[in-house]
């Protein structure tokens, strides 16, 4: 609205200028603001030919230095202070259509041209986009004291005053109870909590107590995790083509716990970006890094692992920018950002941060964090303690890391110079025929006298050798292969070597002919030194422990990030036009120059350094992005509506100062506590307003951009399911664990080369919260996707709410919802109230916390009667409707029809 008014003002100004003073005179002119007046015209009319993608005639308006530089003609197009001599203006006014800009497009309006002229006359000052400048402390407006509960409200009040609007009164308690419960814990509040709140005479105090209790509930994390899992593109499958299963649910549980523990957001981010960089990372810190192992992988036969490894790295870059920093970064992959100050090569500098993780798009998903059963954990503890005491801290850490993460091994898929050998399906593992040989390139053999390797060979009589530098080079290890069914790990010792060498591994089996049969399958190689501490007390026992742990089947294995060792670092290159097959110049890890000011001086050039930059107080985007995201969860729309883009192409913030105020508070006063920030939002008078829309608001602010009323939003897919689970008393209290499979129709899963089946749960897993639903990327749980659940193929920074008939069909007909209605009927019938109207009224109140309006009761009561008569006439239908496990009588069938109806009422699917 505000923006609109300003535009009108501009028109007025321009017209005045034209009429009053003629085109070339601007006495007493207002200063032109680059960001709000000039940049929008550039973005709309000029930048597609003179910007990040194209620089026609050597002229670009993307960066200041480019805009002011000499063009192909040899002269700069813009001469600050002199619009009339600026070629830029001349070309806008040219008569000749070949000359006149925008080329072959509609001419700029007089108004637009005047803005440019004034801007140049005033010195062509370049402006930084607001969201790219550090967050500053904002002064809180003074008005609104009578209404405001906290500072947030003052900002809202100010804008309302500007628009001559008044805030709405506070919503009634029942509405507020339901609203804040669905928002904070995603389910109906426990009965006792609801009662305590509703019965407390001091409504203000009662509300705060309610909020505190909800924030402390373990259900809080289950609610808020969903939002983050969209950003993290968390799913239970790998994504591409066959879309096979991935065991990464521990990450989902980590997110739930992080919200429940109120892990400070800076730490929350640091652990996810760089958890593996901590000294002695805990399991939890490792699992946090699964954030970036949620990128898709491609197991399809014949695909190039490097291609999809690069694709995953690119996905990590885009997710980091779009999800954490509200910046659309993907376009910079191919060219400089068309609108925002990010250059092409800066994409690849940023890529260098992510380009050295060990994962290589393997079907095995290495590296995996192994979590052992308790007895094995005890052994591991013994072993590391013994190593610390008898060898060194460093060695203890190295062996711990190897046993926990299997790193830093060399994947057999990266071998080359193959003879009588092949990489299975081009992407699985190295296979040897008889007389097989392969090169393991550039192995650092300093202080190395052992190779461990994971392989399978069930053919006896084989002999392997390791050669230095050439396939026929000097043999430094030679041994007979012990044939065995299945994969095994073996160690080969050899004399200590020096230097970095290509190592060739060869295989001969005299008992076999030369042929196509595969005799050996390799998985990985690990060059190290022999188990240390020889001669110390306990050596034999600990060496045995080492092997027991190495061969132990872990309780779980979760994909995580582990960095390449220093001696096996990948180089990073600019990809010409974004194609990974066209590497250009080499680059070093760095953040875009426009944001470099936020990089701490001592930050290392790795993911930990990146995390330091992300969470630095000067970083302009991290805090703003999260504040905006949390705001959107509660109010339905972000302060910047485009959660994915706060750049110059994103939407203007409705309350920029408020966003900055909250972002500052978040970092400084709340010490990055998300619970404190959320509490601030829900405690506000703004949040607590009645959500009814007056005719005035309908006309002036239908979309509630000014917040003159409370949020009124359709529930999210998860809230919808979880609310009904909780009110029907079917909700399983179980938390965490593998994804579950509640009821879904046949024929939803349909991936090529994948026979995996959705097995409808028959136990309490049917009634787990939505966040635990198994998420298959190519075929997500249909009722949730219908209600705008995110597919999570890539980062989903924002869900767009829709309203479609297909949603109605879900809540009307989906068997899962009918089943919940059955439970709800059971609950209603357990009440002492005998009359059905009382049962219905009670049911309504369980959902809405307020009495059912008489008219609505009448509607439902009549419906009950209709249904009752129907089932009286057709008792056979009754059985199929109420199912096997519930009371079979006409009353329950009719009540079920009512429950099914109730579940579809607008107020039930909406947060009022």
């Amino acid at each position, binding site marked *: 609205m505000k923006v609109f008014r300003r535009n009108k003002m501009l028109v007025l100004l321009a017209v005045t200028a034209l009429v009053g003073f003629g085109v070339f005179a601007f006495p007493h002119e207002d200063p032109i603001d680059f960001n709000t007046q000039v940049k929008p015209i550039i973005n709309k009319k000029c930048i597609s030919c003179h910007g990040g993608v194209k620089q026609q005639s050597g002229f670009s308006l993307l960066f200041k230095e480019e805009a002011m530089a000499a063009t192909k003609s040899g002269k700069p197009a813009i001469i600050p202070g002199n619009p009339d001599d600026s070629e830029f203006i001349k070309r806008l006014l040219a008569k000749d259509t070949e000359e006149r800009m925008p080329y072959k497009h509609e001419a700029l309006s007089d108004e637009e041209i005047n803005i440019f002229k004034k801007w140049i006359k005033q010195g062509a000052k370049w402006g930084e986009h607001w969201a790219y400048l550090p967050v500053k402390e904002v002064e809180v407006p003074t008005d609104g004291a009578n209404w405001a509960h906290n500072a947030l409200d003052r900002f809202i009040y100010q804008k309302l005053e500007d628009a001559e609007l008044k805030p709405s009164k506070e919503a009634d308690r029942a509405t507020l109870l339901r609203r804040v419960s669905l928002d904070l814990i995603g389910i109906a509040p426990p009965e006792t909590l609801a009662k305590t709140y509703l019965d407390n005479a001091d409504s203000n105090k009662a509300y705060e107590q309610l909020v505190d209790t909800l924030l402390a509930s373990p259900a809080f994390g289950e609610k808020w995790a969903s939002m983050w899992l969209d950003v993290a593109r968390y799913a239970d499958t790998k994504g591409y083509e066959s879309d096979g299963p991935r065991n990464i649910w521990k990450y989902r549980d980590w997110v739930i716990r992080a919200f429940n523990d109120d892990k400070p957001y800076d730490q929350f981010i640091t652990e996810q970006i760089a958890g593996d960089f901590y000294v002695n990372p805990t399991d939890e810190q490792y699992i946090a890094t699964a954030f970036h192992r949620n990128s898709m992988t491609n197991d399809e036969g014949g695909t*190039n692992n490097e291609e999809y490894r690069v694709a995953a790295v690119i996905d990590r870059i885009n997710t980091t920018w779009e999800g954490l920093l509200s910046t659309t970064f993907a*376009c910079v992959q191919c060219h400089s950002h068309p609108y925002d100050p990010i250059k092409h090569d800066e994409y690849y500098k940023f890529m260098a941060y992510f380009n050295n993780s060990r994962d290589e798009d393997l079907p095995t998903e290495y590296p995996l964090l192994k979590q052992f059963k308790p007895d094995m954990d005890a052994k591991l503890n013994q072993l590391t303690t013994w190593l610390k005491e008898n060898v060194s801290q460093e060695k203890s850490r190295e062996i711990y890391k190897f046993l926990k993460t299997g790193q830093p091994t060399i994947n057999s898929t990266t071998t080359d110079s193959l003879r009588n050998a092949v990489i299975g399906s081009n992407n699985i593992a190295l296979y040897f025929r008889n007389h097989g040989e392969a090169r393991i390139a550039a192995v650092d053999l300093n202080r190395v006298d052992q190779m461990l390797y994971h392989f399978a060979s069930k053919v006896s009589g084989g002999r392997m050798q390791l050669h230095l530098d050439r396939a026929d080079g000097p043999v430094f290890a030679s041994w007979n292969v012990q044939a065995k069914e299945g994969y095994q790990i073996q160690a080969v010792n050899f004399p200590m070597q020096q230097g970095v060498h290509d190592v060739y591994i060869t295989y001969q089996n005299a008992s076999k002919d030369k042929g196509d049969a595969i005799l050996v399958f390799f998985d990985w190689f690990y060059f190290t030194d022999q188990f240390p501490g020889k001669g110390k007390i306990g050596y034999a026992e600990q060496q045995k422990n080492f092997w027991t742990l190495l061969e132990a089947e872990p309780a779980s294995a979760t994909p995580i990030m582990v960095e390449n060792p220093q001696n096996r670092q990948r180089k990073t290159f600019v990809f010409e036009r974004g194609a990974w097959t066209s590497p250009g110049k080499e680059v070093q890890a760095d953040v875009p120059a426009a944001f470099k000011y936020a990089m701490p001086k001592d930050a290392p050039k790795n993911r930990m350094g990146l995390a330091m930059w992300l969470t630095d107080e000067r970083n302009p985007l991290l805090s703003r992005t999260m504040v905006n995201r949390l705001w959107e969860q509660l109010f339905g729309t972000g302060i910047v509506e485009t959660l994915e883009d706060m750049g110059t192409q994103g939407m203007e913030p409705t309350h920029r100062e408020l966003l900055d105020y909250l972002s500052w508070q978040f970092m400084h006063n709340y010490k990055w506590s998300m619970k404190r920030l959320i509490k601030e939002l829900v405690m506000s008078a703004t949040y607590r307003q009645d959500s009814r829309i007056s005719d005035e608001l309908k006309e002036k602010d239908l979309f509630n951009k000014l917040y003159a009323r409370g949020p009124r939003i359709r529930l999210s897919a998860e809230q919808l399911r979880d609310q009904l689970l909780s009110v029907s008393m079917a909700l399983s209290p179980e938390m965490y664990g593998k994804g579950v499979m509640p009821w879904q129709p046949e024929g939803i899963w349909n991936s090529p080369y994948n026979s995996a089946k959705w097995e409808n749960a028959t136990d309490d897993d049917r009634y787990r919260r939505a966040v635990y639903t198994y998420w298959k990327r*190519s075929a997500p749980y249909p009722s949730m996707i219908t209600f705008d659940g995110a597919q999570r193929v890539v980062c989903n920074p924002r869900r767009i709410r829709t*309203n479609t008939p297909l949603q109605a069909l879900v809540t*009307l007909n989906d068997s899962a919802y009918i089943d919940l209605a059955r439970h709800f009927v059971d609950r209603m019938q357990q009440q002492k109230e005998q009359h059905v109207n009382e049962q219905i009224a009670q049911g309504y109140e369980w959902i809405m916390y307020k009495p059912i309006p008489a008219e609505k009761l009448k*509607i439902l009561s009549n419906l009950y009667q209709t*249904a009752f008569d129907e089932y009286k006439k057709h008792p056979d239908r009754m059985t199929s409707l109420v199912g096997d496990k519930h009371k079979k009588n006409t009353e329950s069938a009719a009540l079920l029809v009512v429950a099914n*109806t109730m579940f579809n*009422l*607008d107020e039930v699917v909406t947060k009022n």
Partner: protein
Amino acid sequence: MTRDELNLHRLIKEANHTQLGAYTRRHFLKESAMGLGALAFGSLLGSCARPSNSTQQIVFDPAHPLLPKSPPFLGKAKSVIYLHMAGAPSQLELFDYKPELEKMSGQDCPESLLKGKKFAFITGVPKMLGPQAKFAQHGESRAWVSDNLPHFSTMVDEVSFLKAVTTDQFNHAPAQLLMHTGGARLGKPSMGSWVTYGLGTENQNLPGFVVLTSGGSFPDAGKSIWGSGFLPSVYQGVQCRSEGDPVLFINDPDGMDRDLRKATIDAINASNEQEYAYYNDPEILSRISQYEMAFRMQVTAPDVMNIDNEPQYIHDMYGTQPGKACFANNVLLARKLVEKGVRFVQLFDWGWDAHGDAPQNSLNIGLKNKCRSTDKPITALLLDLKQRGLLEETLVIWGGEFGRTPMLENRNGAANPYNGRDHHTEAFTMWMAGGGIKKGFTYGETDEIGYSAISGKVEAFDIQATILNQLGFDHEKFTYDFQGRPFRLTDVAGKVIHDIIA
């Protein structure tokens, strides 16, 4: 007579002997659209009476978002069937016959064709690859069609070929998005959404914009390719399944009959009207109309979406595979839907990405299989529409998201194991038929090896402009305000391809 010819013969015979009037769309309108049908009918008549140069604004009525609206001028087409072959079919093996390329086959690609060009996979110097199919001229229009499409080659006199389509996107997802939403990045409404937004739909019992995928996988661009972008979500494509329930959850729960379902929906809406009286939120009105529509869909859709009740020879003609999610079934269903007044039917087939990296992705195996599974149904569709008098008012579009290179693909600098071609942006073939498009016409030409467009060059925006034009819209005036400015399907580009309009 072969079986196909026999079926064809029978179809023609049937068409001649049937009262065509009984099958016109208006008949179905009267028959099936219930109360709102009358409104719809009235509105259609209105469109006949209105002067053709009218430039009325499109009014979005949240309570009745899909009621038929008349376009600014009288379009020749009333509905659209868009057949998208996701993965991008090779024009060089289907329509763009290049004997010169045959001569160069096996030679190194000249540097002039590689320098400064971007390809998805080609690196180094690939070999040229001649046509991997035999070509002949067909029909009175003497159009070249390869032996990959023996059935379709009998239909060339019904269609206009666009031989010089170009794009600037060489990856599937962005190129598909560009073709269907007018933007290579996510967030813009799809063509079907624009059309249902502008025209509503004639049958309120069915979704106005239906999407059918041939089993297998979704298109690369995912569901956003039929999303409503910034338009109200009611205009997004509704995916109908050819396996299981035609639309998920369309059947009532066991033990609840239709009357009772009607009673529940009446109760929901009566209650929601009170809710509206209290909250004054237009979203509630929208919900009321969604529930009305949900019920009408429940009544109508299962029957319409069931192709089983079509006669056997129709099944044979289309080459359907009962119970399966396949292209042929979808094509037959598309005809039924259009016949029943669905505005926009979008089909996606998959697996056309013939790189040569695997047999199913090769020109000599995979492509031929794809042709075999689509040639017959597409031919049947044109014939069937024609015989029912529907082709004139139904615009049919066929194409992929880009073309294929005249060079053999050499991924990572080495030849692929099978014959294949890389993604190519500079020239590919599409065709359009019906809906006021010229018959037996070819527009645009490529150079002698099919690398570049040399005349009659068109891009996605031009195709979109033409589709809108045939439906009665000036693409430059058909806008929706978003983020403070009017947006168009064709962004800032697009020219109607007048040459192919009859």
